[in-house]
């Protein structure tokens, strides 16, 4: 291969690289940080409030989660969460409101396929894996930990 074409190839590759670098990772990450952080901020306001109302810290945490799921569900119903997801990416998906969003959005979308085989069957089409692997991971972790702690007679 003569050096001229090699240089041209390199130039071409740089050109391709310049054009394919259009996914602005930094912008995505900053937006995810801001949206995700804001959702957790709202969660903290709720947690601070429920901590004064509920008897234990655990109950306050559970109530906060349910409240955030309610917010995520409402935002999905009004079509707001779709927009939030487009802007925030992982920032909208990773908080528990995103879990609620996938459940509600699936229920809404598959309702037209019927209430049994549509809405109910497909409600957890995205959230299901989170439940399944969360339970499996929790099961293994707890099995090992409880054995090590000697909690099984």
């Amino acid at each position, binding site marked *: 291969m003569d050096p001229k074409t090699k240089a041209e190839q390199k130039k071409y590759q740089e050109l391709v690289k310049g054009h394919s670098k259009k996914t602005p*990772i930094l912008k*995505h990450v*900053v*937006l*995810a*940080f801001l949206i*995700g*952080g804001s*959702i*957790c*901020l709202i*969660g*903290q306001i*709720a947690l601070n409030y429920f901590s004064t109302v509920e008897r234990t810290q*655990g109950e306050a*945490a*559970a*109530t*906060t*989660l349910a409240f*955030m*799921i*309610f917010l995520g*569900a409402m935002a999905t119903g*009004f079509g707001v969460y779709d927009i939030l997801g487009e802007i*925030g*990416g*992982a*920032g909208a*998906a*990773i*908080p*528990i*409101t*995103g*879990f*609620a969003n996938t*459940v*509600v959005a699936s*229920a*809404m*979308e598959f309702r037209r396929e019927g209430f049994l085989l549509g*809405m109910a069957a497909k*409600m957890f089409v*995205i*959230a299901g*894996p*989170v439940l399944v*692997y*969360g*339970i499996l*991971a*929790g*099961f293994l*972790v*707890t099995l090992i*930990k*409880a054995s090590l702690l000697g*909690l*099984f007679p």
Partner: protein
Amino acid sequence: MSLLIAFLVGGTICAIGQIVLDTTKLTPAHVLVGFTITGAILNGLGIYEPFIQFAGAGALIPVSGFGSAIASGMLAEVKRLGWEGLFTGAFEITGLGVTAAVVFASIIALIAKPRK
């Protein structure tokens, strides 16, 4: 102060998720499952609960907090019941959230129309 910490920690967890999404070929579903499993393991190692004590909603609200809650519910039930707790504990804490999601999703699917 708790608000600022929740914002920073929660934002950082989401930013890590976005970096994984943008730099690998994993789908959002993979990332959600990965964070859930990570939360359960960190809970087992005794790391996630002190983390929630420190960061509050910043650690609780991301889906890793959900995974952690599954594991801590199981351990609490094992302490109470023995091995049966492995099978009753998963929804000890998270049951409220899962039931809330099902109820709200059903009501909203009845009254709202999906966007195109």
